[in-house]
């Protein structure tokens, strides 16, 4: 938005500028950086899309086949190759949603605590703790999951169907821990940006702190909190290693939390080294990558819609 007086002011300013100022190196540099990023994203999208459609274009697999539940990439004496990707797509969506459901109350609660409740000293503990959380490599989460969580589920929830421990729940639990710092930090930003005047006004009306949080802070930060959760889910969808270590990697459509299953990322990492370019199996992995990309693009669109400021009612 420009005010009517700005162009005049700008042209006056320009006359007084020296050569280097007029060259405006910082502006050009940042423009080049922006153009580079856009170009990279464009190239990446077209590269993955091109490779992702080869399963249909090159190997002639019908599009409908990928929505089947049968993953049988290696032809055998009994059956030809079938590239049903539904187990992976559903697996990814399931772990993502369940991890977010587990993580959301914890992380939003933690963010609220840090923003609204914690005294300074408590914040000086929780803040670095969060940063440590972010810094832990995913293989460590996976290793902990494999050596602690999986045996725990097997021993303690054996009667609930966790016969081997490797399960959808194990994957979701590990992921929920991993996305905790993401959701917390974005939600914290949302709470901190709620103007202090609103809290002041609310408290001046005689509300308790909880009532202020419940009726003022949370509604005001609503879109920010939802954005935080969606970003957490995106992180969950993209995580491969830690999930792969605890989920069991069984390519079937999941029917219970106790069942081993698999995800798009997990299957890609399992098979990519052992397949060759141009093989239908390898092309199916690219298609999985494309689907993953489409899922995250969907989430980007969602985040942008949600983070739009809410319309003020008259």
């Amino acid at each position, binding site marked *: 938005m420009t005010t009517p007086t700005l162009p005049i002011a700008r042209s006056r300013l320009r006359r007084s500028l020296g050569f280097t100022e007029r060259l405006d190196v910082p502006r050009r540099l940042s423009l080049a950086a922006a153009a580079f990023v856009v170009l990279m994203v464009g190239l990446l999208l077209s590269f993955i899309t091109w490779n992702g459609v080869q399963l249909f274009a090159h190997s002639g697999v019908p599009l409908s086949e990928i929505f089947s539940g049968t993953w049988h990439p290696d032809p055998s004496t009994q059956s030809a190759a079938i590239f049903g990707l539904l187990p992976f797509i559903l697996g990814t969506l399931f772990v993502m949603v369940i991890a977010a459901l587990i993580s959301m109350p914890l992380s939003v609660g933690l963010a609220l605590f840090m923003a609204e409740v914690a005294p300074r000293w408590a914040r000086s503990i929780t803040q670095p703790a969060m940063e440590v959380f972010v810094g832990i490599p995913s293989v460590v989460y996976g290793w902990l999951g494999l050596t602690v969580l999986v045996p725990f589920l097997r021993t303690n929830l054996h009667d609930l169907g966790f016969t081997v421990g490797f399960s959808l729940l194990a994957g979701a639990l590990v992921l929920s821990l991993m996305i905790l710092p993401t959701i917390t930090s974005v939600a914290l930003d949302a709470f901190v940006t709620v103007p202090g005047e609103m809290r002041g006004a609310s408290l001046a009306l005689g509300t308790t702190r909880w009532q202020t949080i419940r009726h003022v802070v949370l509604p005001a930060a609503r879109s920010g909190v939802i954005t935080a959760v969606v970003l957490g889910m995106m992180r969950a969808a993209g995580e491969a290693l830690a999930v792969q270590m605890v989920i069991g*990697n069984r390519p079937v459509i999941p029917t219970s939390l106790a069942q081993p299953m698999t995800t798009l990322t997990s299957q890609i990492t*399992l098979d990519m080294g*052992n397949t060759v370019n*141009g*093989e239908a199996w390898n092309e199916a992995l690219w298609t999985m990558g494309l689907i993953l990309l489409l899922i995250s693009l969907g989430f980007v669109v969602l985040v942008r819609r949600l983070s739009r400021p809410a319309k003020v009612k008259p």
Partner: protein
Amino acid sequence: MISPFPTRIRVLGLAAVLAAAACSGGGTPTTNPTANSAATQAAGSCVDGSITASGSTALQPLVDAAGKAYTKLCPNSTVNVQGGGSGTGLTQVLGGAVQIGDSDVTAESKLATPDANSLVDHVVARQGWVMVINTGVTGVTNLTTQQARDIWTGVTTNWKAVGGPDQAIVLIIRPASSGTRATLKKIVLGGADEAAGQALTEDSNGAVTTAVQSTPGSTSVIGFAFYQANKANLTALQLDGIDATVDNMTNGSYKLQAFGHMYSKGQPDGLTKAFLDYMLSDSVQHTLIPSLFYAPAQ
């Protein structure tokens, strides 16, 4: 790249002739120190330079050890060894990214015919797999091929059926695209499918080993070297009454084995050829290979 090969090869050729002469001389020991060192060189076939081999993680320990031994013999040559999986090795050697592609499976089984024909196969070793079970499963020491097939195809689902305790069988295996699975499918399953959606899949031999150690009633198939490193925590099974040992693999009586392939694009030359020749030399085939729990190619 500047190629110093022609003169070098001529020198080596001469050295080889000298070496052959020295050998065919029978009991006559050569006294010429120059000829002696040339002969040593011929045995090592030193060619300066640097090459990269990538691919099969099952072959990686062997190629890596051989590469290091070769560099020790010929300090001016370097053999870089990377993993990545058989598919990666075949793709990279085909694309010219590496000079040697290591693979557990034949190029013909993975690549389109014209591509496969452009690669030259060098069988350098045989590698074996052991059927292992969780140590909690007692009373099972041997499986016939038929019993193993029934277990892996989901016909047999309880250890009781093969003489073990009344406990459900948990199948844990490496990815379907791995050499382990390809070998199991070919030799034990006779090309049939494993029980669909029954097995748990783990990415690496290490992860499979950990999973079998900790999961009651579980069974898997792992590489010889991985079994040797985790002997104390796993129970190995005989296949058709034959122990999974390097000796039994070497004499062919142990069936669960496959060739280790090293592919070059076209006929190898220079250091690539020298290194591939070294892989087939006696010191690698009969000393290094058994020490790493592989069997000689022949």
